[in-house]
């Protein structure tokens, strides 16, 4: 199956621009699995780049429960569906989430860079429990290779195209 | 009989004119104070300024918006009131001087008091020497030297006989002496010090504070009633020494006491403001033109005119080059121009 030329162009542009989009948000999220089994505990990895002192507040969809994190106790605050992390020179934070029997939604997040004096949203990650009983896990924490989460959200594509337009607009200045 | 009635009618008309004049002045002064408080480089509406005043007086009932309270009470209000009080004092002192020297061109500075105060300030600024320390260095010196000048006049006049001519001559001598000393100090001093001395001579109400206002008000409150009490003596003196003596006025003692009081009022004002000229000269003149030369009304009325003049000059000084604030002495110096032109054009043969 060959892709049409303009699709190829879009992907090429995307590949060129994704680094630009990623720099705009210092926090990117990846899930160990986007389709956990019922009651399965999966791992969420937050990659932080360029932010030394700041905060991230994650909001889990209904039914999903925060289990644990590798960050020290005094830097985490969990309440209801939300978890706040105080980022202090961390480049990665992982935390475990238990999926319900069934249900889907988006894990959204807000980040704030206190030193850089900026803030924004972490790109949403869609997760859907597939209703199949999963075996009990021994507990997460291993680095999980990121699945293709970025493309699941149309927002990231729009942001990437916008960044490309801006980049080409500014290119003439220098 | 009819003549008596005519005179009485004329006199009651004059009394009414005087009452109206003084009443009008008071009203104008209140309005001008109300206006002056709203002037300044901070952007408040008129309502906010008044709200700030009320909030300062009745803190429970009113609250001032933002910085308005601080700015109005710490920077504007005491400055406006100080201009009123200083203008009043200078005009009254000028009035008294014109009375005892029998010279309509006399002013509080005719006897060299301004020059002496400037010398005191220069000594404080250039040599750092003075009677009081810290922030009162310049103020204390200026006041002391102004009084020294007055005492020098007194001493010289006693030696040669007290009369208006001798006092004026002594005043000129004192003025030249102190001017020369000031010039020498200005030459010797550094560029910074020279600048400070020159700034002082411009005369400004910038450095007013509530305590300074209290001091000046206190001095005026003590001296003005006495002057009013003795206003009739001034009326007599205006007629001439012999006439006054025959009316039972102790001529020499009165002249000296009046001179010292006028010097005291002038000294206490200019030690805080620097030399502000023409108020003491122009205000009594204008008042005399309106309500005649009876010191019982001339004194308070010229005080009010002086207050109005100085407050207007200060308001102009704050607005004309906004946000820069001109020293008010420069604006009052310009006042002298139309005044003397008017005198020149309307000269009457003596």
């Amino acid at each position, binding site marked *: 199956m060959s892709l049409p030329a303009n699709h190829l162009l879009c992907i090429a542009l995307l590949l060129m621009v994704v680094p630009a989009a990623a720099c705009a948000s210092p926090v990117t999220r990846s899930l160990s699995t986007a389709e956990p089994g019922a009651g399965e505990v999966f791992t969420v990895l937050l990659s932080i780049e360029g932010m*030394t*002192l*700041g*905060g991230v*507040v994650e909001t889990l969809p209904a039914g999903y429960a925060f289990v*644990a994190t590798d960050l020290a*106790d*005094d*830097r*985490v*605050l*969990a*309440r*209801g569906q*939300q978890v*706040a992390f*105080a980022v*202090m020179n961390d480049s990665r934070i992982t935390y475990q989430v238990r999926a319900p029997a069934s249900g889907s939604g988006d894990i959204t997040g*807000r980040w*704030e860079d*206190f*030193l850089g*004096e900026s803030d924004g949203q972490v790109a949403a990650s869609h997760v859907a429990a597939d209703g199949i009983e999963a075996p009990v896990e021994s507990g997460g924490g291993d680095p999980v290779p990121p699945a293709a989460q970025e493309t699941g959200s149309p927002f990231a594509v729009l942001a990437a195209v916008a960044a490309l337009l801006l980049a080409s607009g500014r290119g003439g200045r220098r | 009989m009819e003549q008596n009635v005519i005179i009485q009618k004329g006199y009651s008309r004059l009394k009414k004119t005087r009452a109206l004049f003084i009443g009008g002045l008071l009203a104008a002064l209140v309005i001008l104070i109300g206006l002056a408080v709203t002037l*300044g*480089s*901070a*952007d408040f509406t008129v309502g906010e300024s008044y709200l700030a005043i009320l909030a300062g007086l009745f803190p429970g009932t009113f609250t001032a918006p933002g*910085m308005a309270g*601080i*700015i109005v009470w*710490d*920077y504007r209000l005491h400055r406006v009131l100080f201009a009123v009080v200083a203008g009043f004092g200078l005009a009254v002192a000028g009035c008294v001087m014109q009375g005892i020297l029998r010279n309509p061109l006399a002013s509080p500075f005719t006897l060299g008091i301004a020059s002496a105060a400037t010398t005191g300030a220069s000594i404080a*600024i250039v040599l750092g020497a003075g009677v009081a320390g810290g*922030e009162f260095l310049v103020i204390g010196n200026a006041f002391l030297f102004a009084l020294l000048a007055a005492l020098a006049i007194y001493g010289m006049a006693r030696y040669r006989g007290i009369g208006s001519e001798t006092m004026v001559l002594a005043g000129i001598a004192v003025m030249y002496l102190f001017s020369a000393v000031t010039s020498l100090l200005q*030459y*010797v001093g*550094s*560029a*910074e010090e020279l*600048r*400070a001395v020159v*700034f002082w001579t411009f005369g400004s109400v910038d*450095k007013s504070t509530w305590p300074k206002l209290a001091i000046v008000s206190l001095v005026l409150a003590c001296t003005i009633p006495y002057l009013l009490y003795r206003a009739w003596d001034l009326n007599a003196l205006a007629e001439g020494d012999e006439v006054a003596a025959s009316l039972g006025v102790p001529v020499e003692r009165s002249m000296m006491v009046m001179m010292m009081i006028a010097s005291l009022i002038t000294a206490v004002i200019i030690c805080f403001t620097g030399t502000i000229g023409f108020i003491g000269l122009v205000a009594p003149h204008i008042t005399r033109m309106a309500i005649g030369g009876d010191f019982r009304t001339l004194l308070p009325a010229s005080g009010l005119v002086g207050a109005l003049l100085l407050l207007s000059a200060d308001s102009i000084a704050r607005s004309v080059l906004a*946000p*820069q*604030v001109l020293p008010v002495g420069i604006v009052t110096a310009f006042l002298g121009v139309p005044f003397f032109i008017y005198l020149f054009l309307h000269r009457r043969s003596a």
Partner: protein
Amino acid sequence: MNRRCLLALALLLIVAVPASASAMDGTPGDVDGDRVLTSAEYASAALTYLDAAYMGGAGDLTRTDIRDAAWVSAHWDGRPCEITDSSGRTTTLYRPLRRVVTFSGESLETLRSLGFDMEKVVAVDKYSHGKKTFFPECQGKANVGSIWSPDMEQVLILRPDAVFLYATISTATCDDIQKRLEASSPGIRVFRFDCFKPATYPGEIRTIASAVGQKERGEEFAAFYESTMNRIRDGAAGIPDDERVRVYFEYWFDYTTVAAGAGYNEKTRLAGGVNPFATGTAEYPVVDPEAIIVTDPEVVVKLAGQGLAVGGYAGHDIAAFDAIRAGMLERPGWSSISAVKDDRVYVIHSDILGGAQHFIGTAYLAKWFYPDRFADLDPHAVHQRYLTGFQGIDFDLASEGTFVYP
């Protein structure tokens, strides 16, 4: 890890929040008030803020509070910063400076050399405001007048957290401004820095650098400044007294020289020159024209600038400098002076000899007085590096401005 710990933490936060709210004059987040923001305190402050901002919690740390706490944690190691200014007063800073008013152009320039974010300067004095070429970013800022004619209302309206004044000049006037500011607004910090005196400038650079959290850049800039000045001092120290050049330094006005405490006199001496007219206490004495010819100076330096307004940053006007120099050469009797015979008559602009850039001007003086000793000194390069590397303005010395001639 388990819910009970989290609950305890949450309860602790709820208790901690009112305590931190009452610490008005302290680093935000310093709950126990011991003036040290430990990482634990910072972490809990961050969580309190995030809770209040995004999770509907009840905390009263604002965004500015947590940003200040992060800044203090990163730049001052969580501790308050004690600043001793050039008048000897010590002030304690618990938060970074966010709204600065400068009454002195030299302090403003030094802040810029240290990489301070100029957006945080909310108002400047009227002279800096008028320097369109040198301070282009200050054109839009508020104008607070000058030391001698300050617009106090404007300063207060801007609600600054720091005001910069001079330390050793106009002291009475600056003291008055300081007193009035502190009486009206107790939270204002008033800093007294000269930033133009060779003796105190390096220390001031380092002090201001630590106040604005730019220690490294401060060290770099101080080292740059000191390398030039030390080179001049060391070079001039070894000259025996009878070999020192006689200099006639003329101020903006004809036949007026500099003496005593005048800064230009000090710099002439620093560069190794001898000013035979520097007797007496007057700073800018007028000299007898005959005395100049009799003294026979070996170098003549003329100052251009405020009183003789040509060149500097405002204009590229070599012809005007040449005209000034030619005018001096034509003075009666001057053709017999050594300086004229050896072609050692120079014009220099006060922009680089007074103020914060005095090290550049002094380098030029040293090079003119002793070209052999200071052959390796390149004032032009120092000037360009100062402008491009530290001041960060787009100014090319080759084509803009006139500062020295020839």
